[in-house]
């Protein structure tokens, strides 16, 4: 948006447990956000945001898991962009606030019915938690004879979500539903409407339903300590799920105390590793280039899953570098050819990155820059076996191919901030995964699937969906079987029988 253009104003409102509130509105956003939006004064809704006591969640336990799936399925039907005015409005607002371009946003909204789907939700719940634990107590007899039953209960949670994709808001709603939690979603300023649109659709679907009545969506300015320190208290909230940038996650840690825990989905970056097999044939090179281009360009490289640096076992001699130059050209071409619903030129180029790219272009001795003259994206080939100094700033479809001679060098590619490692070929992935996992890597996938992550799996090397639950234990101990302490029994002794 140009400096002179005035920001458009949207009426946002908020949702508190099945109730739509749009009074006492204040103006938020502004030129830096891309829109102005009206949302209730956080101070006025503060007292209504916390769930009044955890026993207020009993209604969720009148539901069977099938009831939950049924609700999700019915919600999915209503989340069709073509028919849903709230999503349509969210799309219009997002086109102004998001770093993503319209075709990408539209495709994401269009995919919501596929996410809110009973089969999909069942698989996610079963794979990440285990449905029996959500449905009831799962008993197991231990070697000392007692029976331990475990059940996963929903928690009162606050989700401070990121706005780089509308998908994050949707996933947060879904995770709350399958875990029978009570969620407060704090909308991000770069996506102030998606969670709200889903919550409003839920009200229209069934305002009295327990799942509708255990979701709140509101906006307040992150860092508003007067507000946060009153809400972020163990008596109101048991868990905070914090997505997003280093500074914002770090900010949240100040509220963490006994009784209030943090599930941190902190900033990550991702890499690709390509074996020498890529150079076997022209067709293989083209195939790998398309996969690499997808890992770089999908969702315009706005996600933590996107590849930014790719290490290629091309060799670092002249022949190796010239092979790599060719792969870079093919990757660039493939990226330019990605469908607009998958990837487009960036909405707004990062000035600093452009200047770094231009400076790299002037240093042919060290870099070969393919493309990037029109801010459309670029591939930088390093001529030294190391990433560009500005690797942490890569984005806007600008990626860096790094030549290496041996597989040992790829350990340098990953650290505790590395989320996804896309690998080609599959055999190399199996060869590397143990070693790289110890270095910090959190997800390995087939090259080309980095931005197409499984939802029914752990995230960032933590079981975030599982951690949303409270894991409660119920023991049955029979003194005849498990020797009791009052008889001065030795602890941790196996049952003689």
């Amino acid at each position, binding site marked *: 948006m140009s400096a002179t253009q005035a920001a458009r104003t949207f009426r946002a409102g908020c949702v508190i447990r099945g109730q739509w509130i749009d009074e006492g509105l204040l103006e938020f956003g502004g030129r830096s956000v891309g829109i102005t939006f009206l949302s209730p004064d956080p101070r006025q809704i503060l007292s209504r945001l916390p769930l009044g006591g955890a026993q207020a969640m009993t209604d969720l336990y009148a539901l069977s898991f099938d009831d939950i799936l049924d609700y999700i399925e019915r919600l999915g039907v209503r989340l069709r962009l073509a028919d849903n005015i709230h999503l349509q409005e969210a799309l219009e607002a997002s086109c102004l606030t998001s770093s993503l371009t319209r075709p990408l946003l539209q495709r994401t909204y269009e995919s919501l019915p596929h996410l809110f789907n009973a089969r999909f939700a069942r698989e996610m719940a079963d794979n990440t938690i285990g449905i029996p634990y959500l449905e009831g107590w799962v008993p197991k007899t231990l070697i000392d004879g007692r029976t331990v039953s475990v059940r996963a209960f929903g928690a009162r949670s606050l989700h401070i979500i990121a706005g780089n994709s509308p998908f994050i808001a949707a996933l947060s709603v879904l995770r709350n539903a399958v875990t029978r939690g009570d969620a407060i979603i704090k909308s991000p300023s770069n996506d102030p409407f998606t969670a709200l649109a889903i919550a409003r659709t839920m009200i229209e679907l069934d305002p009295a339903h327990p799942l509708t009545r255990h979701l709140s969506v509101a906006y307040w300015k992150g860092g508003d300590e007067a507000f946060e320190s009153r809400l972020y208290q163990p008596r109101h909230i048991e868990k905070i799920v914090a997505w997003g940038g280093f500074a914002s996650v770090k900010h949240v840690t100040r509220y963490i105390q006994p009784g209030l825990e943090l599930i941190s989905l902190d900033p990550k970056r991702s890499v690709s590793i390509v074996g020498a097999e890529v150079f076997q044939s022209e067709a293989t090179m083209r195939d790998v280039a398309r996969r690499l281009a997808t890992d770089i360009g999908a969702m315009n490289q706005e996600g933590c899953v996107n590849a930014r640096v790719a290490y290629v076992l091309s060799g670092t001699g002249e022949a190796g570098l010239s092979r790599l130059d060719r792969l870079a050209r093919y990757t660039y071409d493939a990226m330019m050819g990605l469908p607009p619903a998958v990837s487009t030129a960036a909405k707004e180029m990062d*000035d600093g990155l452009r*200047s770094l790219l231009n400076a790299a272009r002037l240093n042919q001795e*060290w870099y070969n820059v393919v493309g990037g003259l029109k801010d459309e994206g670029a591939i930088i080939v390093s001529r030294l076996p190391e990433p560009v*100094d500005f690797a942490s700033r890569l984005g806007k479809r600008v990626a860096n191919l790094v030549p290496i001679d041996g597989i040992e060098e790829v350990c340098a590619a990953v650290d505790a901030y590395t989320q996804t490692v896309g690998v080609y070929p599959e055999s190399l992935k199996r060869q590397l995964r143990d070693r790289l996992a110890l270095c910090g890597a959190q997800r390995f996938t087939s090259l080309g699937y980095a931005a197409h992550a499984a939802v029914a799996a752990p995230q960032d090397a933590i079981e975030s969906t599982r951690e949303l639950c409270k894991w409660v234990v119920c023991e049955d101990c029979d003194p005849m079987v498990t020797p009791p302490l009052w008889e001065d029994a030795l602890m941790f002794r196996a049952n003689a029988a």
Partner: protein
Amino acid sequence: MEAIAAVRATGARSETIDIDRFLADPTECFDQSQTRLMGMAPETVAALQLAGLKRRFARFRSALPMLQRLADSEGIDAIEDLGDVLPLLFDHSTYKSYPASLLEKQRFGALTSWLGKLTTVDLSGVDASNCRSVDQWMQLLRTETPLSICHTSGTSGTLSFLPWSKREWRVMTGQFTTLFFRRFGDEAPPLKLPLNVPCVYPFFRHGGMAHTIVNDYFAEFVAGSEERFHAAYPGRLSADLLLLAARRRAAAARGEVDTLKLGPELEARREEFEAQQRNMPQHIADFSGAVLSRLAGQRIFMTATSNLLYSMAERGLKEGSRKLFHPSSVIVTGGGGKGMVLPDDWQAPVKEFFGADRINLGYGMSEMCAPFASCEYGHYHVNPWIIPFVLDPDTNLQLPRTGTVTGRFAFYDLMPDTRWGGFITGDEVTLTWEDLPCACGRTAPYLHRKIIRLSQKAKHADGEEKLSCGSAPGAYEEALDFLNDGAA
């Protein structure tokens, strides 16, 4: 020989200006008369600047490989209009576009050949393969070539290197004295260098940053002797230690685990740095006590950041000192509030303590010769050897060259004859063009006092933000602490 028939704005006298002389040494060309320099008719300046720019481009187009590559890719072979140079401006990235690993791996030979693409000075004969530190490398270039390169404080985690020549520093010193030791409207005879005025500098005597390198030239041409140059710290501001500070800060800002290790070179100099840190309190005490009182009542020359001047003045006034130096003393400081928060009336206690009847403000940067001096109306007048541009910060397209405009500042500095003078800054300025001249009588366009870093405005904080000169000492001391605590 090409000459421009010049008219002075006052119309009192016309003269002929030889462009080559103007380019070689703009202030010398005007007998160091600020009145003549800053009072030229706008059309004369415009003619000089266009002719000068054409010459510079013709000379550098094929002589500077970095420019050549840029001009080739932009398809620019000639300059017909000032605006033609815009696609060819360098920015801060250009001067640090070497791989940072060259410094870590001490590949100073490769770094030299990179630098060679930014200067017409032939560096092919320099053998830097034995250098083990940035300090050594910079000193080698200074000993063996006509260059005296400077580096920036480098908040991004690495240092920019600017290939200034010694001749350019000398010319810059002449510009500096013309701007700050002479006054506009003053028709006195040319200054005779050296001025033999004692210099006071409340920081390191030596170092590779622009404001420490220039000490060498101030010592020669202003102080007239090393004995008359009084720095707070006698040693050298180490580039290697600043680099360490910059890398630590950049890593911390990215939230990265602190994995920085000291190289053997820094380890070996630990004792030197320990001594430097140990002696700092004594040096600053001697400096504020003995040195300053020995110069009491004299006309001195001093440059310092405004926050340093202010804190020295506050402390001194509290201790009961006032009117330390002669009222005609020349005190020059960086204005333009780059991240500094000083009270509005900060100049009053500074004048009261140091005794100078005025504080000279300048706006400048390592990439530009001599700063723009502020007039009595608080306007920074553009020196005529600088071609100013104001760009739309979003599109980098040029804003009109009339009236008053606000945008990103860019310029072409015509003075350097060994490196490309085109540079695009990260500063947002408000500039008033010649058609609305300042009441002070200078005909040159001027920048308004309020200058801000665009990165501070930007919605996504730009990691390229420079440390202001004012915070460099802090970063340096932090690095000394780190080093001497053995925290690595």
